[in-house]
């Protein structure tokens, strides 16, 4: 690496190019979204499409205002986010605990491996009606849905991470006289942190799937409820608005995990 107190002109050129390129990417991204929404608006105005079934940005803004005015917007958003958060946490923590147990005991791993594979292949949504019968048609069933969808994948991904930790690192700790618990704490968990976080990223998405599915089936509040309700009474404005809010909320939750990743993994 050339180290100069003055940045060389080559370097400056390079940095400028880099920046220019970045600006180009970001502005194209913005332009694209603006174009889509504008086209949508114009197409609906000019009746190329029927805003009754496709809705239209200006109508969505109006809907948003309405929902904001009676405060129900926030109730629905909070309900869905809360359910997703609880489902996500339960799925992640539960998955972590079960993965640790299965790492600890080879016997249990061998016993449960085929069950995990089958449960993973099963579309968990099919269990929705059973959950409703068992847990009633309330938040319990919705959270259970989110939990069920995320926990199996969590267990499988985390366990895979635990089991692929470098054997020699484990041997090193053993040569210092480490017991199994120390090995778990000093090498297994920290070494598989990147893997665990990518499991979290997948989990966020899956929890949203679980919650929205659950809200479709039961519930009297939440974004999933708004979407189903809106489609039933043919208020596509409501449906589209809810979908957009959902996209924004999901993005935020994903960014939160990505931020967590950056904070936790400093060594790369």
């Amino acid at each position, binding site marked *: 690496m050339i180290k100069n107190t003055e940045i060389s002109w080559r370097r400056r050129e390079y940095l400028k190019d880099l920046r220019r390129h970045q600006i180009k990417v970001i502005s194209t991204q913005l332009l694209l979204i603006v174009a889509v929404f504008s086209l949508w608006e114009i197409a609906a105005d000019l009746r190329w499409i029927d805003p009754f079934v496709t809705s239209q940005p200006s109508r969505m803004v109006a809907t948003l205002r309405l929902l904001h005015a009676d405060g129900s917007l926030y109730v629905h958003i909070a309900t869905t986010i809360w359910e997703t958060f609880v489902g996500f946490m339960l799925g992640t923590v539960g998955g972590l605990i079960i993965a640790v147990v299965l790492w600890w005991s080879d016997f249990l791993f061998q016993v449960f491996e085929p069950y995990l594979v089958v449960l993973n292949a099963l579309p968990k949504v099919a269990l929705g009606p059973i959950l409703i019968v068992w847990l009633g048609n309330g938040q319990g069933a919705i959270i259970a849905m989110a939990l069920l969808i995320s926990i199996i994948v969590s267990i499988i991904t985390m366990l895979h991470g635990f089991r692929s930790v470098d054997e020699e690192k484990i041997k090193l700790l053993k040569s210092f006289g480490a017991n199994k618990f*120390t090995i778990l704490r*000093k090498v297994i968990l920290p070494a598989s942190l990147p893997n665990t976080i990518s499991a979290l990223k997948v989990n966020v998405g899956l929890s949203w799937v679980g919650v929205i599915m659950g809200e479709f089936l039961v519930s009297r509040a939440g974004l999933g409820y708004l979407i189903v309700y809106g489609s039933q009474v043919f208020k596509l404005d409501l449906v589209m608005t809810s979908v957009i809010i959902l996209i924004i909320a999901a993005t935020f939750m994903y960014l939160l995990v990505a931020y967590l990743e950056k904070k936790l993994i400093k060594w790369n």
Partner: protein
Amino acid sequence: MIDCQPEKREVTYILKDKVHLKNITMVFQTRKGETEALRGVSLTVYQGEFVSIVGPSGSGKSTILNIIAGLLSPSSGEVEVDGTVGYMFQRDCLFEWRTVIKNCLIGPEIQKQDLNLARRNVENLLKTYGLEDFMNYYPHQLSGGMRQRVALIRTLAVNPDIVLLDEAFSALDYQTRLTIADEVWSILRRENKTAVIVTHDIAEAISMSDRIAVLSRRPGEIKNIYDIEFTQKGNSPLQNRKDERFRYYFERIWEDLEINDKKY
């Protein structure tokens, strides 16, 4: 960085044995069958001695180290190890989520030693061996040779009496390998350690050791033990490579391994 002047080793003739293996046999059981890795291996390593074990791959060299380290118990035979053991592997096995100093402190941490004391000790070692500026670096920021030196300091941090080196240099490029082997050798001599070195590199073994045990193919038996005596005593491994007797040992051991090969 590290001064490789010949050490004046005081040769005291109170030969205290640190490692004593008697008639070790090791049989591994797997689903597919059993593998006899070692057969009737006896070996004694005395205080302050550097003993190398060479042999074809799969001859159970590493198994011997694992037995000495207490990570494996032999199927039969006696093992006596007097003192604590430190282990160095082919790969440095540094934890990429820990800084250099934290990597070095992993041993004391696990053994629940006084961490302040250990930290001071490690800082001194890092200073002595030219790594003090890199104390708070992460392993990926270091070169291969530096990483292996950190790995050595991690081993020394628990103050072992006996250091086991399992192909500790073979992952390094040739030049680094020679210098690092030289450095590690001087460090271990200076810290007055006993060393058991496993390598498939005959030249490395000859240049570093007081004695060399040659293993046969699986099941590993000790074919021969050579006492290495150079014309010039107390030289470093690099200097030893130029000694006139170097070739002689090389050819003898080479032949041992070759004859071995022809059997199969």
